[in-house]
């Protein structure tokens, strides 16, 4: 098994809620509340969950755009949150991010050359000044844009092209890890596949590791080697792609999978859908015990008091991490395996 390049241990991020005239802290939004995982070299770890589950905050913590309330991230043997000044700047070269919104992620007053070249301005030792223009054009070429468009402004590009610019900026410093925060969800369907394929190509060519944060379970299945499912700031289930999609043991994962519409009308009546009660509770006041117990179809008294740990639990074929007292595998979707055919075609 490949070694871990990034290890997050018990990450917690609580945002204070200020109230009253004196702006005193009256509570905390528990956006991320004890998340641990490993990212292996060269793999894609998908993080899925609904809005408010803390997946975007997690991405920002891993980028150190936010300081955690507690917990640690070790990157390549270095404790990220202990780094300061030059050491932190150096570390930033190795972890980069691609944002969701291709419209707000590019400075509208800069040319594409400025945007993609900014990493070289900030880290001048990477590419000598003379070679920068060439380096930027090479990057544009790599992400499938016309290198001659270096002097254009972001608004002259479509959403998909802008996302490619964002990716070019992200990989400029040759990072080891790229954190992708919903990189395709703002794009048109016919353009999504282009960007997903580009990201897969770049991973192969540059040996990148991805953390792929998204709410679209189909895209995550397609691109990920392993998948983590988040609910209200905690990891509900974590395992190989096969484990999560083929043998989910957590009721939330099962409900989530059953709700995803599959583009095949013949499955209409075959699919059983697990309908969840109510809405996601507020992360400012999460339920006691298991956070999912208020909506869970399996909930018992134990779930209201005891927090289930994320630990290896049997899934029928083996075991994978799941945070449910009553973890039990259940097949939600019938998987059509195209891997062998795909390999056959390639040969």
């Amino acid at each position, binding site marked *: 098994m490949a070694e871990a390049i990034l290890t997050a241990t018990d990450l917690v991020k609580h945002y204070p809620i200020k109230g009253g005239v004196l702006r005193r802290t009256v509570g905390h939004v528990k956006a991320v509340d004890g998340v641990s995982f490993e990212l292996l070299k060269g793999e894609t770890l998908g993080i899925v969950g609904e809005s408010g589950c803390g997946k975007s905050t997690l991405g920002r913590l891993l980028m150190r755009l936010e300081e955690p309330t507690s917990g640690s991230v070790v990157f390549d043997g270095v404790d990220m949150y202990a780094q300061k000044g030059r050491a932190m700047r150096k570390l930033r070269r190795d972890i980069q991010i691609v944002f969701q919104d291709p419209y707000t992620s590019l400075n509208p007053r800069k040319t594409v050359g400025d945007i993609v070249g900014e990493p070289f301005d900030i880290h001048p030792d990477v590419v000598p000044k003379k070679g920068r223009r060439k380096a930027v054009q090479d990057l544009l070429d790599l992400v499938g844009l016309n290198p001659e468009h270096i002097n254009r402004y972001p608004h002259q590009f479509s959403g998909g092209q802008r996302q490619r610019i964002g990716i070019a900026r992200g990989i400029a410093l040759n990072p080891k890890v790229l954190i992708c925060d919903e990189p395709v969800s703002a794009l048109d369907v016919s353009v999504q596949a282009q960007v997903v394929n580009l990201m897969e190509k770049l991973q192969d060519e540059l040996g990148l590791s991805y953390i792929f944060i998204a709410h679209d379970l*189909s895209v995550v299945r397609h691109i990920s080697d392993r998948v983590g499912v988040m609910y209200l700031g905690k990891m509900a289930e974590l395992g190989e792609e096969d484990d999560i999609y083929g043998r989910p043991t957590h009721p939330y994962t099962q409900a989530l999978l059953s709700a995803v519409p599959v583009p095949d009308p013949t499955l209409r009546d075959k699919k059983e859908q697990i309908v969840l009660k109510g809405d996601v509770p507020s992360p400012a006041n999460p339920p006691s015990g298991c956070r999912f117990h208020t909506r869970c179809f399996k909930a018992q008294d134990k779930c209201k008091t005891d927090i289930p740990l994320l630990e290896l639990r049997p899934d029928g074929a083996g075991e994978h991490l799941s945070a449910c007292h009553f973890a039990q595998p259940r097949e939600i979707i019938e998987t059509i395996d195209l891997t062998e055919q795909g390999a056959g075609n390639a040969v």
Partner: protein
Amino acid sequence: MTTTDTGTRRGKAAAGSEYHAKDGLLLEVEDLYVEFHTADGIARAINGVNFDLYEGQTLAILGESGSGKSVTAQAIMGILDVPPAVIPKGQIRYCGEDLLTMQAEKRRKTRGPEISMVFQDALSSLNPVFPVGWQIAEMFRVHRGMNRSDSLERAIKLMQRVQIPGAKERVKAYPHQFSGGMRQRIMIAMAIALDPAVLIADEPTTALDVTVQAQIMALLQELQEERQMGLILITHDLGVVADVADKIAVMYAGRIVERADVYDLYRQPAHPYTKGLLESIPRLDQKGQQLAAIGGLPPNLMRIPEGCAFNPRCKYAQDVCREDRPALRLVAPGRESACHFAEEVLNG
């Protein structure tokens, strides 16, 4: 479930609507064109769209941004801003009467009791300064002349119908006190309040989480079956369409490029664009799938390519596609496609 207020279409006609759907035919859109006149030029948003909608039918209009799907909905509802929008040509007939030539006042009165719409963004569609119950009740006060307490009573009933828990207690709550899914339910309640014959849902679940999306789609379907409404579902999501639609019209650059029964279309698309879309989306139930992305970009509506608008992105494209714009034609029983090589696409 509780019974409806006015029952089915037949009941409604008896209740005094002046419109009668002959043989269940509610809506006919014929050769519709819409242009936007902007400072930079003319954007041709819709270029000759035809379709019919029957009682109890769910028609999905599928397309990407800029395909003209939302503009079509807005043209039917009569909520396009004119100018910049111009409708140079076409008819939109509701129960045989052309909405486009109808007197403004008469047309206004069709919005609500006859044709009604659910929008994507429920938060901005609701007025933040009035309680939700009051906003639903307003429909009854304005259109039915009911008094305050009766209309509020009806509002509560409707909120219960769209499964808002604790409707009685929450009728006085404000929009921001509801979650996204609940707000969309309120929007649906308002849209069906006057028992319309046609309901247009414009990306009703795009802003919602997947578990909530499933609930809302289920609700829409249930209401549609119960009231035998004609439902136009406008979306870009092939998954949602597969789950609920009867018929699909696929739009590209302001034209319908393919129209078929939902089962046929997913099994064997007859237009290269539809085929490309189906091959490019990742499927939840497939592992190790290769995504065959459609190259290029949707066209600029100010400079739609000559011939077939899809030709620069199409792998079937020949010279004829660059010169001659293919019309939507019958290529097999129940199958229509606007492609010169539709038979090849269909069989290969």
